[in-house]
Protein backbone atom coordinates (compact mmCIF):
# COMPACT_ATOMS: atom_id res chain seq x y z
CA UNK A 1 0.00 0.00 0.00
CA UNK A 2 1.32 3.43 -0.76
CA UNK A 3 1.61 5.92 2.01
CA UNK A 4 1.86 9.60 2.76
CA UNK A 5 5.58 9.83 2.35
CA UNK A 6 5.36 8.34 -1.13
CA UNK A 7 3.41 11.00 -2.73
CA UNK A 8 5.55 14.06 -2.61
CA UNK A 9 9.28 13.59 -2.48
CA UNK A 10 9.78 16.68 -4.47
CA UNK A 11 10.34 20.35 -3.78
CA UNK A 12 7.08 21.87 -2.76
CA UNK A 13 5.98 25.22 -3.90
CA UNK A 14 3.98 27.46 -1.65
CA UNK A 15 1.05 27.18 -3.98
CA UNK A 16 0.29 24.01 -5.89
CA UNK A 17 -2.24 23.20 -8.60
CA UNK A 18 -4.61 21.30 -6.29
CA UNK A 19 -4.65 24.33 -4.02
CA UNK A 20 -5.61 26.57 -6.88
CA UNK A 21 -8.33 24.12 -7.86
CA UNK A 22 -9.64 24.17 -4.30
CA UNK A 23 -9.55 27.95 -4.19
CA UNK A 24 -11.50 28.18 -7.41
CA UNK A 25 -14.06 25.66 -6.18
CA UNK A 26 -14.47 27.60 -2.97
CA UNK A 27 -14.88 30.78 -4.91
CA UNK A 28 -17.61 29.27 -7.03
CA UNK A 29 -19.27 27.34 -4.24
CA UNK A 30 -21.98 29.80 -3.18
CA UNK A 31 -23.30 29.70 -6.71
CA UNK A 32 -22.35 26.13 -7.53
CA UNK A 33 -24.04 24.50 -4.57
CA UNK A 34 -27.57 25.78 -5.17
CA UNK A 35 -27.12 24.96 -8.84
CA UNK A 36 -26.70 21.27 -8.02
CA UNK A 37 -29.60 21.22 -5.64
CA UNK A 38 -27.75 21.85 -2.42
CA UNK A 39 -27.76 24.92 -0.22
CA UNK A 40 -25.32 27.65 0.55
CA UNK A 41 -24.87 26.99 4.25
CA UNK A 42 -23.41 23.61 3.34
CA UNK A 43 -20.40 25.43 1.96
CA UNK A 44 -19.62 26.88 5.36
CA UNK A 45 -19.97 23.49 7.01
CA UNK A 46 -17.67 21.90 4.49
CA UNK A 47 -15.08 24.65 4.84
CA UNK A 48 -15.10 24.32 8.62
CA UNK A 49 -14.72 20.57 8.57
CA UNK A 50 -12.00 20.62 5.93
CA UNK A 51 -10.01 22.92 8.17
CA UNK A 52 -10.63 20.68 11.14
CA UNK A 53 -9.78 17.53 9.20
CA UNK A 54 -6.56 18.92 7.72
CA UNK A 55 -5.27 19.90 11.12
CA UNK A 56 -6.38 16.56 12.50
CA UNK A 57 -4.61 14.65 9.77
CA UNK A 58 -1.28 16.20 10.70
CA UNK A 59 -1.67 14.19 13.88
CA UNK A 60 -3.49 11.15 12.56
CA UNK A 61 -2.07 10.48 9.13
CA UNK A 62 1.28 12.20 9.20
CA UNK A 63 2.46 11.42 12.70
CA UNK A 64 0.47 8.24 13.09
CA UNK A 65 -1.09 9.26 16.39
CA UNK A 66 -4.62 8.04 16.47
CA UNK A 67 -6.86 10.42 18.32
CA UNK A 68 -10.49 9.43 18.60
CA UNK A 69 -11.42 12.38 20.76
CA UNK A 70 -10.49 15.36 18.67
CA UNK A 71 -13.97 16.76 18.46
CA UNK A 72 -13.32 18.09 21.94
CA UNK A 73 -11.03 20.81 20.58
CA UNK A 74 -13.49 21.79 17.90
CA UNK A 75 -16.02 22.22 20.68
CA UNK A 76 -13.67 24.09 22.96
CA UNK A 77 -12.95 26.51 20.16
CA UNK A 78 -16.64 27.07 19.59
CA UNK A 79 -17.41 27.61 23.25
CA UNK A 80 -14.40 29.87 23.73
CA UNK A 81 -15.46 32.03 20.81
CA UNK A 82 -18.99 32.29 22.11
CA UNK A 83 -17.97 32.99 25.68
CA UNK A 84 -15.58 35.68 24.50
CA UNK A 85 -18.38 37.42 22.62
CA UNK A 86 -20.69 37.16 25.61
CA UNK A 87 -18.33 38.08 28.40
CA UNK A 88 -15.40 40.03 27.01
CA UNK A 89 -16.17 41.86 23.81
CA UNK A 90 -17.92 41.41 20.53
CA UNK A 91 -14.87 41.05 18.38
CA UNK A 92 -13.98 38.77 15.51
CA UNK A 93 -10.23 38.68 16.01
CA UNK A 94 -10.63 38.49 19.77
CA UNK A 95 -12.97 35.56 19.42
CA UNK A 96 -10.72 33.73 16.99
CA UNK A 97 -7.75 34.32 19.23
CA UNK A 98 -9.65 33.09 22.30
CA UNK A 99 -10.75 29.97 20.44
CA UNK A 100 -7.27 29.08 19.27
CA UNK A 101 -5.80 29.86 22.67
CA UNK A 102 -8.35 27.84 24.64
CA UNK A 103 -8.14 24.85 22.33
CA UNK A 104 -4.39 25.16 22.29
CA UNK A 105 -4.10 25.12 26.06
CA UNK A 106 -6.43 22.15 26.32
CA UNK A 107 -4.46 20.40 23.60
CA UNK A 108 -1.16 21.19 25.24
CA UNK A 109 -2.30 19.81 28.60
CA UNK A 110 -3.83 16.65 27.19
CA UNK A 111 -0.97 16.24 24.74
CA UNK A 112 1.60 16.45 27.50
CA UNK A 113 -0.12 13.58 29.22
CA UNK A 114 -0.70 11.54 26.11
CA UNK A 115 2.52 11.90 24.26
CA UNK A 116 4.47 9.38 26.26
CA UNK A 117 1.98 6.69 25.45
CA UNK A 118 1.55 4.66 22.32
CA UNK A 119 -0.73 2.47 20.34
CA UNK A 120 -4.02 1.44 21.83
CA UNK A 121 -3.36 3.20 25.14
CA UNK A 122 -2.99 6.45 23.26
CA UNK A 123 -6.20 5.90 21.33
CA UNK A 124 -8.24 4.99 24.37
CA UNK A 125 -6.88 7.84 26.42
CA UNK A 126 -7.95 10.24 23.68
CA UNK A 127 -11.43 8.77 23.91
CA UNK A 128 -11.33 9.19 27.66
CA UNK A 129 -10.29 12.82 27.50
CA UNK A 130 -12.78 13.52 24.76
CA UNK A 131 -15.56 12.09 26.87
CA UNK A 132 -14.45 14.14 29.86
CA UNK A 133 -14.62 17.35 27.86
CA UNK A 134 -18.00 16.36 26.49
CA UNK A 135 -19.19 15.59 29.97
CA UNK A 136 -17.96 18.93 31.27
CA UNK A 137 -19.71 20.73 28.45
CA UNK A 138 -22.92 18.96 29.34
CA UNK A 139 -22.69 19.48 33.07
CA UNK A 140 -21.22 22.96 33.50
CA UNK A 141 -24.60 24.42 32.83
CA UNK A 142 -23.90 27.95 33.93
CA UNK A 143 -20.91 28.31 31.67
CA UNK A 144 -21.81 26.32 28.62
CA UNK A 145 -25.55 26.16 28.78
CA UNK A 146 -25.35 22.40 29.17
CA UNK A 147 -27.39 20.31 26.82
CA UNK A 148 -29.25 23.33 25.53
CA UNK A 149 -26.01 24.80 24.32
CA UNK A 150 -24.48 28.24 24.33
CA UNK A 151 -26.88 30.35 22.35
CA UNK A 152 -27.02 33.74 20.78
CA UNK A 153 -23.46 33.90 19.53
CA UNK A 154 -23.14 36.91 17.28
CA UNK A 155 -21.25 37.15 14.04
CA UNK A 156 -18.92 40.08 14.63
CA UNK A 157 -17.95 42.11 11.62
CA UNK A 158 -14.59 41.70 9.98
CA UNK A 159 -12.45 44.77 10.55
CA UNK A 160 -9.17 45.25 8.77
CA UNK A 161 -7.94 48.73 9.54
CA UNK A 162 -10.55 51.18 8.33
CA UNK A 163 -12.34 48.56 6.26
CA UNK A 164 -15.28 46.71 7.78
CA UNK A 165 -17.34 43.85 6.37
CA UNK A 166 -20.42 42.42 7.99
CA UNK A 167 -20.45 38.65 8.23
CA UNK A 168 -24.09 38.28 9.14
CA UNK A 169 -24.93 37.12 5.65
CA UNK A 170 -24.17 33.45 5.02
CA UNK A 171 -22.42 34.27 1.79
CA UNK A 172 -20.08 36.74 3.44
CA UNK A 173 -19.31 34.35 6.27
CA UNK A 174 -18.60 31.65 3.76
CA UNK A 175 -16.02 33.74 1.96
CA UNK A 176 -14.38 34.59 5.25
CA UNK A 177 -14.29 30.93 6.21
CA UNK A 178 -12.97 30.01 2.78
CA UNK A 179 -10.21 32.58 3.06
CA UNK A 180 -9.20 31.27 6.48
CA UNK A 181 -9.34 27.76 5.11
CA UNK A 182 -7.00 28.59 2.24
CA UNK A 183 -4.54 30.05 4.70
CA UNK A 184 -4.78 26.88 6.77
CA UNK A 185 -4.28 24.79 3.65
CA UNK A 186 -1.17 26.66 2.60
CA UNK A 187 0.31 26.52 6.10
CA UNK A 188 -0.46 22.84 6.57
CA UNK A 189 0.99 22.00 3.19
CA UNK A 190 4.13 23.89 3.90
CA UNK A 191 4.41 22.26 7.29
CA UNK A 192 3.93 18.76 5.98
CA UNK A 193 6.83 19.20 3.61
CA UNK A 194 9.09 21.05 5.98
CA UNK A 195 11.81 19.49 8.11
CA UNK A 196 9.37 19.52 11.00
CA UNK A 197 6.79 17.70 8.93
CA UNK A 198 9.29 15.14 7.66
CA UNK A 199 10.38 14.38 11.19
CA UNK A 200 6.74 13.81 12.13
CA UNK A 201 6.49 11.30 9.33
CA UNK A 202 9.73 9.69 10.36
CA UNK A 203 8.25 9.21 13.81
CA UNK A 204 5.26 7.51 12.28
CA UNK A 205 7.42 5.19 10.22
CA UNK A 206 9.97 4.25 12.80
CA UNK A 207 9.86 5.88 16.17
CA UNK A 208 12.86 3.93 17.43
CA UNK A 209 15.13 5.02 14.61
CA UNK A 210 13.91 8.59 14.91
CA UNK A 211 15.05 8.50 18.50
CA UNK A 212 18.37 6.91 17.69
CA UNK A 213 19.23 9.57 15.14
CA UNK A 214 18.74 12.16 17.81
CA UNK A 215 15.17 13.48 17.79
CA UNK A 216 13.23 14.24 20.94
CA UNK A 217 10.25 12.24 19.79
CA UNK A 218 8.05 13.09 22.74
CA UNK A 219 8.34 16.80 22.03
CA UNK A 220 7.33 16.42 18.43
CA UNK A 221 4.32 14.35 19.36
CA UNK A 222 3.30 16.95 21.89
CA UNK A 223 3.83 19.81 19.45
CA UNK A 224 1.74 18.30 16.68
CA UNK A 225 -1.03 17.43 19.10
CA UNK A 226 -1.16 20.99 20.35
CA UNK A 227 -1.01 22.37 16.83
CA UNK A 228 -3.83 20.18 15.59
CA UNK A 229 -5.88 21.20 18.62
CA UNK A 230 -5.28 24.86 17.80
CA UNK A 231 -6.38 24.37 14.21
CA UNK A 232 -9.44 22.53 15.48
CA UNK A 233 -10.11 25.48 17.76
CA UNK A 234 -9.95 27.85 14.81
CA UNK A 235 -12.41 25.70 12.92
CA UNK A 236 -14.54 25.65 16.04
CA UNK A 237 -14.77 29.42 16.17
CA UNK A 238 -16.07 29.42 12.60
CA UNK A 239 -18.58 26.79 13.65
CA UNK A 240 -19.78 28.97 16.50
CA UNK A 241 -20.25 31.84 14.10
CA UNK A 242 -22.00 29.72 11.53
CA UNK A 243 -24.45 28.11 13.94
CA UNK A 244 -24.50 31.18 16.17
CA UNK A 245 -24.39 28.69 19.01
CA UNK A 246 -22.20 26.00 20.48
CA UNK A 247 -23.35 22.55 21.56
CA UNK A 248 -21.71 19.67 23.40
CA UNK A 249 -22.45 17.25 20.59
CA UNK A 250 -19.33 18.04 18.58
CA UNK A 251 -17.31 16.78 21.50
CA UNK A 252 -19.07 13.44 21.56
CA UNK A 253 -17.36 10.23 20.53
CA UNK A 254 -19.75 10.09 17.63
CA UNK A 255 -18.50 13.34 16.09
CA UNK A 256 -14.88 12.68 16.95
CA UNK A 257 -15.31 9.39 15.21
CA UNK A 258 -16.80 11.09 12.18
CA UNK A 259 -13.67 13.05 11.45
CA UNK A 260 -11.63 9.85 11.74
CA UNK A 261 -13.91 8.20 9.22
CA UNK A 262 -13.89 11.16 6.88
CA UNK A 263 -10.12 11.24 6.92
CA UNK A 264 -9.72 7.55 6.24
CA UNK A 265 -12.34 7.35 3.53
CA UNK A 266 -10.86 10.38 1.82
CA UNK A 267 -7.39 8.94 1.91
CA UNK A 268 -5.74 10.95 4.65
CA UNK A 269 -3.41 8.05 5.37
CA UNK A 270 -1.76 8.49 2.01
CA UNK A 271 -2.42 11.99 0.79
CA UNK A 272 -2.45 15.57 1.99
CA UNK A 273 -5.69 16.07 0.10
CA UNK A 274 -7.31 12.99 1.56
CA UNK A 275 -9.11 14.90 4.30
CA UNK A 276 -10.50 17.33 1.75
CA UNK A 277 -11.93 14.55 -0.37
CA UNK A 278 -13.19 12.79 2.71
CA UNK A 279 -15.04 15.80 4.08
CA UNK A 280 -16.66 16.59 0.75
CA UNK A 281 -17.66 12.96 0.28
CA UNK A 282 -19.20 12.82 3.72
CA UNK A 283 -21.28 15.94 3.32
CA UNK A 284 -22.41 15.02 -0.16
CA UNK A 285 -23.38 11.60 1.17
CA UNK A 286 -25.19 13.20 4.06
CA UNK A 287 -27.19 15.62 1.99
CA UNK A 288 -27.70 13.67 -1.20
CA UNK A 289 -28.12 10.19 0.28
CA UNK A 290 -29.75 11.61 3.35
CA UNK A 291 -32.37 13.20 1.16
CA UNK A 292 -33.18 9.78 -0.24
CA UNK A 293 -33.12 7.68 2.86
CA UNK A 294 -33.04 8.00 6.60
CA UNK A 295 -30.53 5.19 6.79
CA UNK A 296 -27.70 7.09 5.06
CA UNK A 297 -25.37 7.05 8.07
CA UNK A 298 -25.71 3.29 8.22
CA UNK A 299 -24.61 3.06 4.59
CA UNK A 300 -21.80 5.51 5.16
CA UNK A 301 -20.61 3.37 8.05
CA UNK A 302 -20.65 0.31 5.81
CA UNK A 303 -18.71 2.16 3.15
CA UNK A 304 -16.20 3.11 5.80
CA UNK A 305 -15.84 -0.50 6.95
CA UNK A 306 -15.46 -1.67 3.37
CA UNK A 307 -12.74 0.90 2.78
CA UNK A 308 -10.84 -0.17 5.88
CA UNK A 309 -11.03 -3.77 4.77
CA UNK A 310 -10.33 -3.32 1.09
CA UNK A 311 -9.06 0.14 0.26
CA UNK A 312 -7.46 1.73 3.29
CA UNK A 313 -5.65 4.14 1.00
CA UNK A 314 -9.00 5.83 0.58
CA UNK A 315 -10.35 7.90 -2.26
CA UNK A 316 -7.14 9.84 -2.72
CA UNK A 317 -5.12 6.65 -2.83
CA UNK A 318 -7.46 5.09 -5.33
CA UNK A 319 -7.27 8.20 -7.47
CA UNK A 320 -3.51 8.21 -7.26
CA UNK A 321 -3.48 4.57 -8.35
CA UNK A 322 -5.68 5.30 -11.33
CA UNK A 323 -3.56 8.23 -12.40
CA UNK A 324 -0.37 6.23 -12.08
CA UNK A 325 -1.76 3.42 -14.13
CA UNK A 326 -2.88 5.90 -16.71
CA UNK A 327 0.56 7.39 -17.12
CA UNK A 328 2.43 4.11 -17.07
CA UNK A 329 3.96 4.78 -20.44
CA UNK A 330 5.92 7.63 -18.89
CA UNK A 331 9.16 6.78 -17.14
CA UNK A 332 8.04 7.01 -13.58
CA UNK A 333 11.14 5.61 -12.00
CA UNK A 334 13.43 7.39 -9.63
CA UNK A 335 14.39 10.81 -10.62
CA UNK A 336 15.82 13.65 -8.64
CA UNK A 337 13.45 16.54 -8.18
CA UNK A 338 14.07 19.57 -10.29
CA UNK A 339 15.47 22.19 -8.02
CA UNK A 340 14.93 25.22 -10.13
CA UNK A 341 12.98 27.97 -8.48
CA UNK A 342 9.65 26.46 -7.46
Amino acid at each position, binding site marked *: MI*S*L*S*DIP*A*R*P*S*AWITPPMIALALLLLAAPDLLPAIGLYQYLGIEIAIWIGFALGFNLLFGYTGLHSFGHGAYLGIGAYAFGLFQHHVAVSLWGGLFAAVLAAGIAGALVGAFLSHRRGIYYALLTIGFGQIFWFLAMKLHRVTGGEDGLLGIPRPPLTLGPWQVALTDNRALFYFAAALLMIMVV*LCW*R*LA*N*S*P*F*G*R*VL*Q*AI*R*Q*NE*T*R*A*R*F*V*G*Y*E*VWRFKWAVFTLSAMLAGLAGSLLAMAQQSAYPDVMSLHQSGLVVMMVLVGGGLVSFWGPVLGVVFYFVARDVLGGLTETWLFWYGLIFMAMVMLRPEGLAGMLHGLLRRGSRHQPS*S*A*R*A*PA*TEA*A
Partner: protein
Amino acid sequence: MALFEARRIHKRFGSRVVLEDISLAFEEGQISGIMGPNGAGKSTCFHVLTGQHRPDRGEVLFDGQRISGLPPQRIARMGVSRSFQLMNLFDDTVVIENVMLALPSFRERRLRAMSAVFSDRGLIDQALAVLDQVGLAARAWDAAASLSYGDRRALEIAVALAAEPRILFLDEPTSGLGAEATRRLAQLVRQLRERYTIVMIEHDMRFLFELADRISVIHWGQVIAEGTPAQLGDNKWVRRSALAEATHA
Protein backbone atom coordinates in the same frame (compact mmCIF):
# COMPACT_ATOMS: atom_id res chain seq x y z
CA MET B 1 41.67 6.97 28.51
CA ALA B 2 39.61 5.17 25.94
CA LEU B 3 37.09 7.01 23.81
CA PHE B 4 34.28 4.76 24.96
CA GLU B 5 34.22 2.75 28.13
CA ALA B 6 31.88 0.49 30.01
CA ARG B 7 32.69 -0.02 33.66
CA ARG B 8 31.34 -2.92 35.68
CA ILE B 9 28.04 -3.14 33.92
CA HIS B 10 25.44 -5.25 35.58
CA LYS B 11 22.03 -5.87 34.01
CA ARG B 12 19.18 -8.16 34.89
CA PHE B 13 15.76 -8.76 33.44
CA GLY B 14 13.40 -9.89 36.13
CA SER B 15 15.28 -12.57 38.01
CA ARG B 16 17.68 -13.35 35.18
CA VAL B 17 21.10 -11.75 35.32
CA VAL B 18 22.12 -11.08 31.74
CA LEU B 19 25.27 -9.04 32.20
CA GLU B 20 27.58 -9.48 35.11
CA ASP B 21 30.39 -7.10 35.90
CA ILE B 22 31.24 -6.28 32.30
CA SER B 23 33.99 -3.80 31.59
CA LEU B 24 35.00 -2.83 28.09
CA ALA B 25 37.11 -0.14 26.52
CA PHE B 26 37.16 0.97 22.92
CA GLU B 27 40.09 3.05 21.74
CA GLU B 28 39.65 5.87 19.31
CA GLY B 29 40.46 5.04 15.71
CA GLN B 30 40.25 1.31 16.26
CA ILE B 31 37.83 -1.32 15.17
CA SER B 32 36.65 -3.26 18.21
CA GLY B 33 34.69 -6.45 18.03
CA ILE B 34 32.32 -8.19 20.39
CA MET B 35 31.56 -11.82 19.86
CA GLY B 36 29.96 -14.65 21.71
CA PRO B 37 27.28 -17.28 21.40
CA ASN B 38 23.60 -16.47 21.18
CA GLY B 39 21.96 -15.61 24.42
CA ALA B 40 25.33 -14.78 25.95
CA GLY B 41 24.33 -11.22 26.52
CA LYS B 42 26.16 -9.47 23.72
CA SER B 43 22.99 -7.94 22.31
CA THR B 44 21.97 -6.71 25.73
CA CYS B 45 25.46 -5.37 26.16
CA PHE B 46 25.11 -3.50 22.91
CA HIS B 47 21.78 -2.08 23.98
CA VAL B 48 23.25 -0.88 27.24
CA LEU B 49 26.21 0.72 25.51
CA THR B 50 24.00 2.61 23.07
CA GLY B 51 21.40 3.73 25.55
CA GLN B 52 18.49 1.46 24.78
CA HIS B 53 18.70 -0.09 28.23
CA ARG B 54 19.88 1.39 31.45
CA PRO B 55 22.39 -0.68 33.44
CA ASP B 56 21.39 -1.68 36.94
CA ARG B 57 24.91 -1.06 38.12
CA GLY B 58 27.98 0.38 36.54
CA GLU B 59 28.41 3.14 34.06
CA VAL B 60 29.06 3.83 30.43
CA LEU B 61 31.38 6.65 29.51
CA PHE B 62 31.87 8.39 26.22
CA ASP B 63 34.77 10.73 25.91
CA GLY B 64 34.95 10.89 29.66
CA GLN B 65 31.29 11.79 30.04
CA ARG B 66 28.81 9.51 31.69
CA ILE B 67 26.13 8.49 29.23
CA SER B 68 24.51 5.56 30.98
CA GLY B 69 21.02 6.54 32.02
CA LEU B 70 20.70 9.19 29.36
CA PRO B 71 17.93 8.75 26.81
CA PRO B 72 19.10 7.35 23.46
CA GLN B 73 18.40 10.54 21.56
CA ARG B 74 20.75 12.51 23.84
CA ILE B 75 23.45 9.92 23.41
CA ALA B 76 22.97 9.95 19.66
CA ARG B 77 23.38 13.68 19.53
CA MET B 78 26.65 13.42 21.41
CA GLY B 79 28.15 11.50 18.53
CA VAL B 80 27.31 7.87 19.25
CA SER B 81 25.60 6.22 16.30
CA ARG B 82 24.37 2.70 15.78
CA SER B 83 22.94 0.43 13.17
CA PHE B 84 20.42 -2.27 13.96
CA GLN B 85 20.51 -5.98 13.29
CA LEU B 86 16.77 -6.12 12.63
CA MET B 87 16.77 -3.17 10.33
CA ASN B 88 15.13 0.03 11.42
CA LEU B 89 14.54 2.06 8.31
CA PHE B 90 11.96 4.61 7.30
CA ASP B 91 10.19 2.31 4.93
CA ASP B 92 7.47 4.56 3.61
CA THR B 93 9.82 6.97 1.97
CA VAL B 94 12.72 7.19 -0.45
CA VAL B 95 16.26 6.09 0.25
CA ILE B 96 17.71 9.57 0.36
CA GLU B 97 15.27 10.79 2.96
CA ASN B 98 16.32 7.98 5.29
CA VAL B 99 19.78 9.45 5.22
CA MET B 100 18.72 13.08 5.25
CA LEU B 101 16.79 12.64 8.48
CA ALA B 102 19.99 11.58 10.20
CA LEU B 103 22.12 14.47 8.99
CA PRO B 104 23.03 16.88 11.76
CA SER B 105 22.41 19.81 9.44
CA PHE B 106 18.88 18.50 8.86
CA ARG B 107 18.38 18.01 12.54
CA GLU B 108 19.36 21.61 13.17
CA ARG B 109 16.43 22.67 11.07
CA ARG B 110 13.94 20.32 12.65
CA LEU B 111 11.78 23.13 13.99
CA ARG B 112 11.55 24.92 10.69
CA ALA B 113 7.96 24.39 9.77
CA MET B 114 7.78 26.57 6.74
CA SER B 115 10.79 25.75 4.61
CA ALA B 116 10.76 23.08 1.95
CA VAL B 117 13.06 20.15 2.50
CA PHE B 118 13.62 18.83 -0.95
CA SER B 119 14.52 22.19 -2.45
CA ASP B 120 17.63 22.35 -0.34
CA ARG B 121 20.43 21.37 -2.65
CA GLY B 122 22.97 21.44 0.14
CA LEU B 123 21.13 18.82 2.16
CA ILE B 124 20.57 16.65 -0.86
CA ASP B 125 24.24 16.75 -1.77
CA GLN B 126 25.27 15.85 1.75
CA ALA B 127 22.91 12.90 1.74
CA LEU B 128 24.12 11.77 -1.66
CA ALA B 129 27.69 11.86 -0.41
CA VAL B 130 26.80 9.51 2.43
CA LEU B 131 24.94 7.20 0.08
CA ASP B 132 27.95 7.22 -2.17
CA GLN B 133 30.06 5.83 0.65
CA VAL B 134 27.90 2.72 0.80
CA GLY B 135 27.35 2.55 -2.92
CA LEU B 136 23.68 3.50 -2.96
CA ALA B 137 23.87 6.91 -4.62
CA ALA B 138 22.26 5.58 -7.79
CA ARG B 139 19.21 4.42 -5.86
CA ALA B 140 18.76 7.64 -3.90
CA TRP B 141 15.26 8.33 -5.16
CA ASP B 142 13.94 4.79 -5.00
CA ALA B 143 11.54 3.68 -2.31
CA ALA B 144 13.45 2.32 0.64
CA ALA B 145 11.11 -0.63 0.79
CA SER B 146 11.98 -1.61 -2.78
CA LEU B 147 15.66 -2.23 -2.06
CA SER B 148 17.17 -5.70 -1.98
CA TYR B 149 18.15 -7.11 1.38
CA GLY B 150 21.79 -6.36 0.82
CA ASP B 151 21.05 -2.80 -0.19
CA ARG B 152 18.84 -2.32 2.83
CA ARG B 153 21.73 -3.45 5.02
CA ALA B 154 23.86 -0.87 3.30
CA LEU B 155 21.21 1.78 3.85
CA GLU B 156 20.97 0.78 7.48
CA ILE B 157 24.64 1.60 7.87
CA ALA B 158 24.34 4.74 5.79
CA VAL B 159 21.74 6.13 8.16
CA ALA B 160 24.09 5.52 11.06
CA LEU B 161 26.91 7.21 9.14
CA ALA B 162 24.85 10.22 8.18
CA ALA B 163 24.76 11.34 11.79
CA GLU B 164 28.50 12.12 11.52
CA PRO B 165 29.31 10.17 14.64
CA ARG B 166 32.59 9.86 16.45
CA ILE B 167 31.90 6.27 17.27
CA LEU B 168 29.88 3.86 15.17
CA PHE B 169 28.24 0.77 16.62
CA LEU B 170 27.33 -1.92 14.11
CA ASP B 171 24.94 -4.64 15.25
CA GLU B 172 25.65 -7.83 13.28
CA PRO B 173 26.16 -5.99 10.00
CA THR B 174 26.71 -9.17 7.97
CA SER B 175 23.46 -10.69 9.16
CA GLY B 176 21.79 -12.40 6.22
CA LEU B 177 24.38 -11.35 3.68
CA GLY B 178 25.92 -13.69 1.15
CA ALA B 179 29.66 -14.08 0.53
CA GLU B 180 29.93 -11.36 -2.09
CA ALA B 181 27.97 -8.81 -0.08
CA THR B 182 30.01 -9.64 3.00
CA ARG B 183 33.19 -8.99 1.07
CA ARG B 184 31.89 -5.61 -0.02
CA LEU B 185 30.87 -4.83 3.51
CA ALA B 186 34.36 -5.67 4.74
CA GLN B 187 35.75 -3.26 2.19
CA LEU B 188 33.36 -0.58 3.36
CA VAL B 189 34.35 -1.08 6.97
CA ARG B 190 38.00 -0.76 6.02
CA GLN B 191 37.23 2.53 4.32
CA LEU B 192 35.23 3.75 7.27
CA ARG B 193 37.93 3.04 9.81
CA GLU B 194 39.83 6.02 8.52
CA ARG B 195 37.20 8.37 9.83
CA TYR B 196 35.30 6.54 12.55
CA THR B 197 35.92 4.49 15.61
CA ILE B 198 33.96 1.32 15.04
CA VAL B 199 32.52 -1.27 17.39
CA MET B 200 30.94 -4.38 15.90
CA ILE B 201 28.98 -7.28 17.23
CA GLU B 202 29.39 -10.16 14.91
CA HIS B 203 28.71 -13.83 14.48
CA ASP B 204 30.84 -14.14 11.39
CA MET B 205 34.15 -14.87 13.01
CA ARG B 206 36.17 -14.67 9.85
CA PHE B 207 34.77 -11.21 9.18
CA LEU B 208 35.52 -10.08 12.67
CA PHE B 209 39.00 -11.53 12.84
CA GLU B 210 39.86 -9.98 9.52
CA LEU B 211 38.86 -6.46 10.47
CA ALA B 212 38.97 -5.97 14.21
CA ASP B 213 41.99 -4.65 16.06
CA ARG B 214 40.68 -5.93 19.34
CA ILE B 215 37.96 -8.40 20.19
CA SER B 216 36.08 -9.07 23.40
CA VAL B 217 34.38 -12.40 23.90
CA ILE B 218 31.22 -12.37 25.96
CA HIS B 219 29.83 -15.61 27.35
CA TRP B 220 27.48 -16.24 30.24
CA GLY B 221 27.10 -12.52 30.71
CA GLN B 222 30.81 -11.95 31.28
CA VAL B 223 33.87 -11.04 29.27
CA ILE B 224 35.73 -14.32 29.16
CA ALA B 225 38.48 -13.31 26.79
CA GLU B 226 39.90 -10.22 25.23
CA GLY B 227 42.70 -9.36 22.88
CA THR B 228 43.89 -9.03 19.33
CA PRO B 229 42.74 -11.62 16.80
CA ALA B 230 46.16 -13.19 16.94
CA GLN B 231 46.04 -13.51 20.71
CA LEU B 232 42.54 -14.89 20.64
CA GLY B 233 43.46 -17.46 18.06
CA ASP B 234 44.97 -19.46 20.93
CA ASN B 235 41.92 -19.19 23.14
CA LYS B 236 40.19 -22.51 23.84
CA TRP B 237 36.67 -21.30 23.45
CA VAL B 238 37.42 -19.29 20.33
CA ARG B 239 39.07 -22.29 18.75
CA ARG B 240 36.13 -24.46 19.57
CA SER B 241 33.71 -21.96 18.08
CA ALA B 242 35.85 -21.54 14.99
CA LEU B 243 35.79 -25.28 14.52
CA ALA B 244 32.04 -25.31 14.94
CA GLU B 245 31.69 -22.55 12.39
CA ALA B 246 34.00 -24.25 9.95
CA THR B 247 31.99 -27.46 10.06
CA HIS B 248 28.83 -25.48 9.46
CA ALA B 249 30.31 -23.38 6.67
